[in-house]
């Protein structure tokens, strides 16, 4: 309990008190606090347990790179694990819980792992759990997963809304520190369309934590001046709380805006997060630099934090880090912190400077130890002392807070998301973004070390260069800065000798310097090998703090430059992204569109049960009173349709109008059978093949006029056939005069089948539809209801009964269906669904996509005569001639009946010769469709069987390996009902 809130200072709203809880204990914070700053203000420095060793951990950073302070916040469906307390804004009623500890944060039994650490070092998975192999999945992995864990996701549904949006701009500026503000202002003044995105709730970046003066203004006032001007410009879009997460092809950036993650209960009508895709002509990364931790023993002890973070808590949040503070620095920025701490009245005990001398004067009270390093930190759950080595001598100083300033690494992640590799710079002692990135430049501390004034100038000149390139002009911005101590490149301090405690490199995955040494020693010194061997950089922070230190330590261990070690690959996302943001609105009922037939309400009123087929809701059957199972309804519908009549909604069949003077030629080329000679007023069944000769789709096409056709496709392939026809007409034969229009949604289409179909239909059709005037396969426009309506009528049958399909404009569908039911009532009409449709077609051996499964040729289905021998060209013509496709041993269509009618079999079952073993070699084919035929009082099936058509009458076994079913059956003609036939033609 050593950190505390200062009585004044900071940009928090002290008038607003925000109560919150951490592990059930109540605390208060202020408006403007992060969860981390509020915890520190309340003296709560122990906030987490580490991943592997369960070590006590405190808050290390003040931003997105935080590896320690991960907690679960929220309750119920709004529970969010692994939230970084350093970026979570405080709100009244926030509930935060620590993770990975049992029974409590201060007493965690898992900490015993620390004692086992000799066995848990790098590669321990590979070495320890080798044997017995079966133990891995059942014993070791569950144990390890329980012991080493992050927060748990909730099983409740997320109640909140998410959305996606596009933004377009000339210039995207990522980051709103001194560099980003200057870039955005310069570009905006020149007239460019600018988007400025920053992950923080307030713009200003590092300026919000700085005590320097710019143009005579306090840093925060300077920020306000810039932001006010940006807000006043119509060509600027400001996105706060927005993390740019990835750089993608075509200069499109992904960004997540946390619209309402800073409130207890999000307002409805607004999403909690918005996923942006920002199409930018150009982008400037003004992402700044990440301060590096220093690698010494016990460097993870709560109370130790990065110097820049300490400065942020002090200056921005009015939080003092402790009562006795020390600073361990390798550069001058440590002195800026020293100055600010002392000005705030915090007792600064010592500055441990690794250099022989600093370039800035220091006049404070703290002891300055030069050419000195901290070798160890002690205290367990709270820092109590540090061990210092100076000139070969050791001394211990009691402190309760320690700032570490280990130098800066430019934040270049986004610049490397499209394959570019970081380049090591000896001059900058840092990995820099690759040169000549197309559409992206880096400015300020993201590009090179510089002071505040340099950053402003660099951001401005980069923006000006882009403005000029885009034909605009403007002026560069410069500022006068006082009190800035940043800007000099210092020699990094990678390894610190003489540690007695664990020296952590990757805090989140508990990787120590010893682990990296071990990796190098055991031959895993390549950066990609070391990463996997030690897990360094593989945690949710993706090594933001650890990767550079790890690379440098590997380089030292191997005696090479960091340039030769190289980096691992930077991949999106920069920070973790919620599934909610990626899902957007596409969840639940909005996951995909629902397509409803124009006859949907008619079906609802007739008690339909619907089945989802693709996007469609199709009526499956129409239950009537007294029917207890779906089969009762389907059997009745099937029987009644063959005795009287049935009405079925077939609106979801794909419908395409084809017109143009070359329409006939075009159809001749896309169907395997001939269409050019189809007379006007007639329909014809057609087969479309793929390039490889297999059947693609089937359906009827009718010639409505010399140059106008009406095509129907199967429901499933409606969209595919449309694209295919467009491809044929546009890419293959653009010289043909053909126009295509999808009219699926324009027509309500119903099939009226059964012996009484004509009688019923005649009641609403004006013209005479007797067989002589409207014969089999007739297709033409008809007048309905005494001239009130015109429709398209086709005499086609998919049931083997006398049948018509009537298409009327979609909006009239329901009324026409009602009228047919009404006039049909005295004739015993019933509505039937797709289940009955399927039984009716199967009883007659008609095929669907259950048979056209992508492996069948026309001949396989007994449709060889539908392949024209005379047409010079059609899709699939050449490849259909392949020798193998006329192999007599190819499976071909046959019917299948069980020997015992009370026994059934399933589609997908395989056919075995009688007495043959169930082996692959004995496989004779498979069942494609099955149904119960109320006419035959038996299961019937269609199947693709080797030599099927030649084996009618042969007894076989229908075998289903999944259900272990062996059903004796008999191969038969696929046409099960041979009534006193030719009904559809009569």
């Amino acid at each position, binding site marked *: 309990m050593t950190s505390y809130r200062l009585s004044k200072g900071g940009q928090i709203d002290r008038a607003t008190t925000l109560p919150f809880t951490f592990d059930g204990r109540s605390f208060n914070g202020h408006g403007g606090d992060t969860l981390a700053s509020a915890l520190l203000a309340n003296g709560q420095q122990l906030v987490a347990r580490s991943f592997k060793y369960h070590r006590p951990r405190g808050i290390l950073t003040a931003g997105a790179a935080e590896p320690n302070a991960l907690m679960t916040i929220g309750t119920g469906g709004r529970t969010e694990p692994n939230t970084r307390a350093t970026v979570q804004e405080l709100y009244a009623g926030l509930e935060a819980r620590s993770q990975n500890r049992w029974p409590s944060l201060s007493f965690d039994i898992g900490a015993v792992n620390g004692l086992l650490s000799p066995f848990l070092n790098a590669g321990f998975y590979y070495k320890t759990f080798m044997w017995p192999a079966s133990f891995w999945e059942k014993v070791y992995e569950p144990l390890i997963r329980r012991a080493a864990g992050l927060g748990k996701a909730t099983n409740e549904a997320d109640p909140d809304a998410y959305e996606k949006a*596009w933004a377009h701009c000339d210039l995207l500026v990522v980051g709103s520190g001194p560099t980003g503000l200057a870039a955005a202002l310069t570009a905006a003044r020149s007239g460019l369309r600018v988007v400025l995105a920053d992950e923080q709730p307030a713009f200003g970046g590092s300026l919000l934590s700085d005590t320097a003066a710019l143009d005579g203004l306090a840093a925060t006032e300077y920020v306000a001046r810039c932001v006010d001007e940006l807000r006043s410009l119509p060509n600027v879009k400001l996105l706060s709380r927005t993390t740019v997460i990835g750089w*993608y*092809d*075509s200069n*499109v950036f992904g960004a997540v805006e946390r619209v309402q993650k800073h409130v207890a209960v999000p307002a409805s009508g607004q999403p909690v997060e918005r996923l942006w*895709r920002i*199409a930018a002509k150009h982008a400037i990364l003004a992402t700044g630099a990440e301060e590096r931790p220093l690698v010494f023993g016990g460097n993870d002890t709560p109370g130790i934090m990065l110097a820049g973070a300490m400065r942020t808590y002090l200056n921005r949040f009015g939080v003092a880090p402790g009562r006795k503070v020390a600073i361990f620095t390798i550069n001058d920025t440590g002195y800026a912190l020293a100055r600010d701490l002392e000005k705030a009245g915090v007792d600064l005990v010592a500055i441990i400077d690794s250099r022989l001398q600093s370039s800035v004067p220091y006049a404070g009270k703290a002891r300055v130890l030069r050419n000195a390093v901290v070798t160890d930190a002690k205290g367990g759950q709270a820092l109590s002392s540090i061990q210092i080595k100076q000139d070969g001598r050791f001394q211990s100083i009691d402190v309760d807070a320690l700032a570490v300033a280990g130098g800066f690494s430019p934040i270049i992640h986004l610049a490397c998301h*499209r*394959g570019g590799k970081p380049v090591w710079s000896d001059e900058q002692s840092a990995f820099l973004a690759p040169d000549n990135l197309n559409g992206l430049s880096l400015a300020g501390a993201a590009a090179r070390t510089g002071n505040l004034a340099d950053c402003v100038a660099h951001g401005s000149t980069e923006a000006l260069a882009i403005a000029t390139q885009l034909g605009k002009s403007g002026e560069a911005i410069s500022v006068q800065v006082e009190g800035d101590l940043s800007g000099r490149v210092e020699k990094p301090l990678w390894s610190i000798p003489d540690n007695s405690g664990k020296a952590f490199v990757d805090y989140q995955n508990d990787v120590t310097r010893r682990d990296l040494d071990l990796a190098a020693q055991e031959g895993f010194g390549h950066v990609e090998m070391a990463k996997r061997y030690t897990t360094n950089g593989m945690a949710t922070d993706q090594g933001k703090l650890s990767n550079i230190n790890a690379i440098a330590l590997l380089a030292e261990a191997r005696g090479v430059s960091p340039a030769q070690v190289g980096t691992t690959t930077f991949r999106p996302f920069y920070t973790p992204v919620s599934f909610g943001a990626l899902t957007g609105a596409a969840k639940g009922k909005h996951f995909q569109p629902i397509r409803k037939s124009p006859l949907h309400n008619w079906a609802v009123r007739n008690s339909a049960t619907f089945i989802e087929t693709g996007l469609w809701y199709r009526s499956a059957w129409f239950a009537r009173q007294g029917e207890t199972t779906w089969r009762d309804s389907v059997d009745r519908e099937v029987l009644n349709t063959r005795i009287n009549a049935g009405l079925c909604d077939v609106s979801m069949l794909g419908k395409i109008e084809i017109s143009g003077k070359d329409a006939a030629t075009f159809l001749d080329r896309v169907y395997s059978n001939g269409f050019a000679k189809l007379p006007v007023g007639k329909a014809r069944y057609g087969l479309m093949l793929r*390039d*490889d000769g297999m059947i693609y789709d089937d359906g009827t096409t009718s010639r409505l006029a010399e140059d106008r056709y009406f095509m129907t496709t199967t429901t499933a392939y409606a969209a595919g056939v449309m*694209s295919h026809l*467009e*491809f044929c007409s*546009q*890419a*293959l034969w*653009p010289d043909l005069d053909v126009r295509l229009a999808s009219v699926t949604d324009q027509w309500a289409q119903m099939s009226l089948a059964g012996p009484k179909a004509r009688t019923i239909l005649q009641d609403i059709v004006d013209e005479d539809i007797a067989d002589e005037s409207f014969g089999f396969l007739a297709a033409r426009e008809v007048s309905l209801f005494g001239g009130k309506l015109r429709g398209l009528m086709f005499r086609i049958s998919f049931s083997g009964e006398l049948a018509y399909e009537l298409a009327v404009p979609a909006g009239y569908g329901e009324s026409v269906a009602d009228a047919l039911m009404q006039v049909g009532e005295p004739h015993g009409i019933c509505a039937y669904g797709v289940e009955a449709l399927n039984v009716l077609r199967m009883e007659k051996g008609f095929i669907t996509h259950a048979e056209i499964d992508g492996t069948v040729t026309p001949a396989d289905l007994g449709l060889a005569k539908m392949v024209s021998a005379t047409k*010079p*060209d059609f899709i699939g*013509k*050449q*490849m259909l*001639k*392949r020798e193998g496709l006329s192999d007599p041993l190819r499976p071909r269509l046959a019917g299948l009946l069980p020997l015992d009618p009370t026994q059934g079999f399933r589609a997908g079952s395989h056919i075995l010769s009688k007495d043959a073993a169930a082996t692959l070699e004995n496989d004779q084919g498979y069942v494609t469709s099955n149904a119960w035929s109320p006419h035959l009082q038996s299961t019937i099936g269609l199947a693709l069987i080797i030599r099927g058509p030649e084996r009618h009458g042969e007894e076989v076994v229908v075998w289903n390996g999944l259900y272990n079913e062996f059903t004796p059956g008999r191969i038969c003609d696929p046409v099960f009902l041979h009534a006193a036939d030719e009904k559809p033609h009569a």
Partner: protein
Amino acid sequence: MASLISCPHCGSRPKEEFEIKGAALPRPAPDAPQSEWFDHVFLRENPRGRYDEYWHHAAGCRRWLVVTRDTASHEVEACRDAAERVPA
């Protein structure tokens, strides 16, 4: 893959509006030898670099396009309507 495609009819549009068929290869003559057809239907080059592909602006103008892109850098070099005949 490119995030944006410059459709010659609709301008720069997100890739989600498009469907990709694959290599834009000339269709062999109807009476070409079967070996040529076999190559056309089944064999594909997998070049590193420039590649012509058929893209369909399915959620846009419904035109088939030939997109010339670099398979390594993902840069789109050109995008034309598939009906446009280009000199070989």
